[in-house]
């Protein structure tokens, strides 16, 4: 039994780190732009498929990753400038923006399925596995874990050292006031779109090297990311990562002891119960009630 628990814990840390990448990207985009960016799922798939196609053509995985990130950046900037930004300027209702984002997701995923088919795509960088205290660990999982942690740490330190975190928090709180303080809110929006999407692409690539992706893989992980975004309303990388790992642990436990099909259903049942009890989410700014 102990080895099962240890295996679940290890797998959850790995999948939790990948989920963290999606969560950080989704949460920062949502907080700064106020767009419930479901097309994040499409960017995840787009990144994964571009990486798979390029490595299939013989490109080195580093080059393939760089090209995938560049393509996703261009596409997300187009989406921001052509769809989200004009909608925000016209003060479009958030439900309309949500539908637009859903539409973008459908266009991306259907285009990918049309050109590449719907079967699972895997780019296994290594087939090696080894045992540590009865826990089976694959080299691909180690890559996932290390790359994920390094990206999160670089982002965390990067925004702290450049004081970008302050501008992000300010614009997320009140964009007009942020402008009054001298922050270029349009540039911050574009930047957060690019960084958030880069996180989705990296999550997509890391998923491709272990379990693989199919066109609709992005939606389940994005819905889990959205659940964490509702539970953690603070822009805080530490809490976002912690709650992502705990959610992955919960989902993997459900999958192991019940059934994989229960995973998402129970996730959202728990989410509903928490939100009914704590409307502000699990981790929020403690503001006094007026």
């Amino acid at each position: 039994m102990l080895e099962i628990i240890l295996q679940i814990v290890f797998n959850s840390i790995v999948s939790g780190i990948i989920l963290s990448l999606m969560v950080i990207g989704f949460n920062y985009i949502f907080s700064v732009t106020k767009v419930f960016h479901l097309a994040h799922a499409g960017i995840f798939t787009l990144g994964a498929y571009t990486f798979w196609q390029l490595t299939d053509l013989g490109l080195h995985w580093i080059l393939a990753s760089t090209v995938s990130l560049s393509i996703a950046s261009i596409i997300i900037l187009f989406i921001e400038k052509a769809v989200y930004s004009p909608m925000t300027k016209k003060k479009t209702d958030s439900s309309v923006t949500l539908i637009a984002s859903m539409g973008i997701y459908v266009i991306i995923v259907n285009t990918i399925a049309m050109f590449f088919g719907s079967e699972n795509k895997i780019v296994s960088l290594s087939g090696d596995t080894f045992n540590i205290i009865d826990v089976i660990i694959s080299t691909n999982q180690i890559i996932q874990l290390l790359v994920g942690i390094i990206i999160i740490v670089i982002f965390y330190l990067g925004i702290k050292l450049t004081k970008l975190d302050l501008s992000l928090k300010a614009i997320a709180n009140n964009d007009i006031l942020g402008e009054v303080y001298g922050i270029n809110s349009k540039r911050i929006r574009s930047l957060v779109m690019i960084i958030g999407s880069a996180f989705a692409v990296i999550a997509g690539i890391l998923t491709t090297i272990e379990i693989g992706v199919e066109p609709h893989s992005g939606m389940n992980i994005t819905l889990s990311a959205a659940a964490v975004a509702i539970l953690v309303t603070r822009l805080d990388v530490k809490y976002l990562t912690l709650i992502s790992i705990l959610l992955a642990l919960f989902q993997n436990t459900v999958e192991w002891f019940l059934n994989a099909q229960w995973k998402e259903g129970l996730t959202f049942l728990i989410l509903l119960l928490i939100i009914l009890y704590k409307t502000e989410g699990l981790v929020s700014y403690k503001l006094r009630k007026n």
Partner: protein
Amino acid sequence: MIETVLELNNISTGYQEKIILDKISLTVKRNETLAIIGQNGSGKSTLLKTIARIISDNSGYINFKTEKIDKLATHKLREKGLSYFVQGGLVFTSLTVKEHFNLAFKGKSKVKKKALLEECYKQFPDLEKLENSLGGNLSGGQRQMLSFAMLIAQETDVWLLDEPTAGLAPKMVEQVIDFLKRMESKKTIVIVEHNDKVVGEIATRVIDLDKFKN
């Protein structure tokens, strides 16, 4: 001759299709305190929002010092020397007082930051104890004090103030009047205000938008 720092020429502005102010022209001289008064809906706040470029699709032109600012975005105005005190204050609910200072001090040298912080704490000593408090947890008076401290911290010479005494207790209103009187000789102020006492005590010139429009 006293320098003109702000000039509005034939400004027509409003929200989308609705014109609130039509062909307004006015000038503001250095170190004067101009109070804009008028009934609700007369366009006082709209006027400040247009100068601050929150509303940007106006006709006519706005000169700030020697530069046309019609094409500038709001975030550019601070570096030109113009601060806008938004109705409700300059407080982010999810940022601490310390973070507000860090944001306002962005791009300034360590020496400058230290001097400005000392000046802010000299003007508003209570803020020092509130360093780690979130903006959203400050009382109305504390929020207003922090907002004025932010104006000092931004180190601009022209202030647009949109109802800075709204919702404040009489004692706090007195403190705001005292503060603005202390600043009068150093700053050019355009203030939108409903409180006659504030206008009477600090304004060197008053424009009634109701009369102005007719």
